[in-house]
């Protein structure tokens, strides 16, 4: 008997995330830190294991080193399995025609042999740039119950934002009669979440056809899904209710971090019934000093706080020296804010040093945007970074950027 898996997940993690600017200079978007101890990819991976899906292919292409290192053998997510588990799938050389992944559909097409190793009945396609908790097993059940060929997870969005999404127009039974990619005048507000379940045989068929179509841009949303719909396949929307946030831009990443600080957060990472697994930092408990003043903040292990921190999210091993003030900001691991420095309405990447009396960003009420400092840079004493500016190079003492 051939061993098989009912459902294999394929996680598209190759995107550059160019709208995160300096934060994705050296790492892929799914590896971007989030919520003091997580990385974005922890959410889809935790969703998979919590939904009973233990076979996940992670497709990487752009700057995969950090992601590979982070995922490792998948043990932090219980995805180290004898049969199945998590696998990194990068583009590889073939006997003829080696190629990078061109588009989402082509990325899956190039890895059909991986999927076929597990002989699945269903394939779940995920993207690695959203923060949400979703039980994919319920969606799979809906897919089976409706005898669908493709089920698309969908969420209601505000009308004014609908034109940013792929919009699904459905019949009362949930079946889709029209699929509009970023419509100027949306007919509905049901947006595709980029989470698809395909019946495996159909996926193989349509990926093959799409690959042979020279006109296609090899994208699920633009090509594969419309082709299936035109051919009359059974396509259903699966309505998801709950917190779902795209963190593909500086401001949405900042907002999603701040959402965690609510007293009753709409998205609770501490929910014991849906644990978010991650690779844990190796660090002692955080230390708050005699003069520390911490209000409405989330702070990870290994931090040392001697200054003031308000409405902020601090990842592991961050040091806030005495007299430093951090407000409305997201600071990633290993960063040090020296004494007298002020950080306001900013996102600071990992291993940054903010020099003494440096000023980063402006008060949120008057700032024109979020200040961003990229990984591993050094801001000299007394230097300043204006609100809304994105910096990925060292700034010398006293300079302005």
């Amino acid at each position, binding site marked *: 008997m051939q061993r098989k898996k009912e459902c294999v997940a394929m996680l598209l993690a190759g995107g550059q995330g160019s709208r995160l600017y300096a934060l994705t200079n050296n790492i892929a978007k799914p590896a971007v830190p989030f*919520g*003091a*101890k997580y990385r974005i990819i922890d959410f889809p991976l935790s969703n998979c294991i919590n939904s009973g899906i233990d076979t996940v292919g992670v497709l990487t292409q752009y700057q995969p080193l950090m992601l590979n290192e982070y995922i490792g053998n998948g*043990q*932090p997510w219980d995805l180290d399995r004898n049969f199945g588990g998590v696998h990194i799938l990068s583009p590889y050389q073939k006997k003829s025609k080696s190629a990078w992944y061109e588009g989402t559909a082509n990325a899956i097409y190039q890895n059909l042999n991986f999927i076929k190793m597990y002989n699945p009945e269903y394939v779940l396609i995920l993207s690695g740039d959203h923060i949400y908790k979703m039980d994919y097993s319920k969606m799979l059940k809906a897919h089976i119950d409706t005898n669908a060929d493709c089920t698309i997870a969908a969420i209601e969005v505000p009308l004014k934002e609908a034109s940013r999404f792929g919009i699904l127009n459905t019949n009362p039974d949930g079946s889709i009669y029209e699929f509009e990619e970023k419509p100027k005048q949306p007919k509905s507000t049901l947006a595709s979440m980029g989470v698809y379940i395909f019946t495996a045989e159909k996926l193989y068929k349509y990926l093959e056809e799409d690959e042979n179509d020279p006109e296609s841009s090899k994208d699920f949303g633009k090509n594969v899904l419309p082709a299936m719909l035109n051919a009359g396949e059974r396509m259903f929307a699966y309505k998801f209710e709950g917190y779902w946030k795209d963190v593909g831009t500086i401001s949405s990443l900042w907002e999603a971090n701040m959402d965690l*600080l609510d*007293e009753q957060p709409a998205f609770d*990472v*501490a929910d014991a019934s849906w*644990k*978010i*697994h*991650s690779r*844990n930092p*190796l*660090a*002692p*408990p*955080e*230390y*708050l*000093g*005699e*003069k*520390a*003043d*911490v*209000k*409405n*903040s*989330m*702070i*990870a*292990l*290994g931090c040392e706080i001697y200054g003031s921190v308000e409405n902020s*999210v601090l990842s592991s*091993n961050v040091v806030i020296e005495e007299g430093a003030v951090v407000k409305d900001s997201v600071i990633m691991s290993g960063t040090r804010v020296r004494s007298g420095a002020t950080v306001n309405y900013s996102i600071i990447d990992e291993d940054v040093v903010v020099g003494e009396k440096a000023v980063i960003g402006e008060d949120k009420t008057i700032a024109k945007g979020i200040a961003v400092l990229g990984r591993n840079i050094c801001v000299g004493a007394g230097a300043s970074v204006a609100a809304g500016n994105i910096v990925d190079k060292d700034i010398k003492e006293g300079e302005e950027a």
Partner: protein
Amino acid sequence: MSAVGVIFSNIHDENIPELSHLRTMGSLPFGGRYRLIDFALSNLVNSGVTTVGIITKNNYQSLMDHLGSGKDWDLARKTGGLILLPPFGARDGEGLYKNRLEALKGITGFLNRRNEEYVILCDCDGVYRMDLSEVIDFHEEKQADITLVCHNEEIANSRNYTTVKSDESGRVTDLKINETVRGSDKFYSNIMVIGRKFLLALIDDAVVHGYKSFREDILLRRTKTLKIYAYDFAGYHATIDSLSSYFTHNMELLEKPVRDELFGARDIYTKVRDSAPSKYGDDSAVKNSLISDGCIVEGTVENSILFRGVKVGKGTVVRNSIVMQDTVIGDNVSLNCVITDKNVVIRDRRVLSGCEVQPYFLAKGTMI
């Protein structure tokens, strides 16, 4: 490094009956997110030891839960790794071991199957960060039979410990037990390096002579005839010999130099629990305290250590206290010099206080 580690997880259980009533000394929570065995284990692993046997006696469920497969210490290995050595029910019906010698006799099978040159024996009553490969180097350089790691400390409960005198070369000249020591003295740290084959020979010899105590019948009786050397460890070493010293040494972690020495290199490993990061509310005021992951702090916390998953309610003041895992403290509570074991619930408006030398202790699962 050619050494196998052996950790005695139970041997000092009587030091803190309050906390080790339901667990081994090795699984005693310490420093916010650690257990005492984490120090011995991490030091062994960081010194290059890849096989560690852990001798248990009773109440070792919490220890097994903590250790799991050993993966958090990189000890889930095909070759060697973490090997739990529960009591070996002797066929002559002697039952549980009563002393260190009998415990060692019970693991001769384990020691025989190894092929490392040396054995490093550690107890679980110490908090320290030490490169044990340097002790092995010292042992080889001195061509010692036995090397005892020693350190200077003031131990109130000194009668349970061994004081060491050594000459300029490091050779041990005198060992004393049951001695009441005032002030600081050189104590044996309960960490020993010994040749594996030599240890097996000593155990055989002890069995045929009916010896009862490793310390009295081997170390003390043969101080002059064996080449016993003292390796003086100059770093931070805290001995947990009573509830009061448990309290004191936990509180020492609030001093930066102590914390930096133990944790600065970020290589003391412990079980991972996937807790969320801690949250501090709008009215929280936390000073000079260590807070672990998964805590929700809404009140005031000063000079205290909060373990994982502790909740501190609004208007509550926690001072000079050690609050263990998953303890829930309600609103408008006042705590001073209190140690709560795991899963304690303190209802709104309770006022509890002990003092530094005699902290007020709440047992595991107490609701007050």
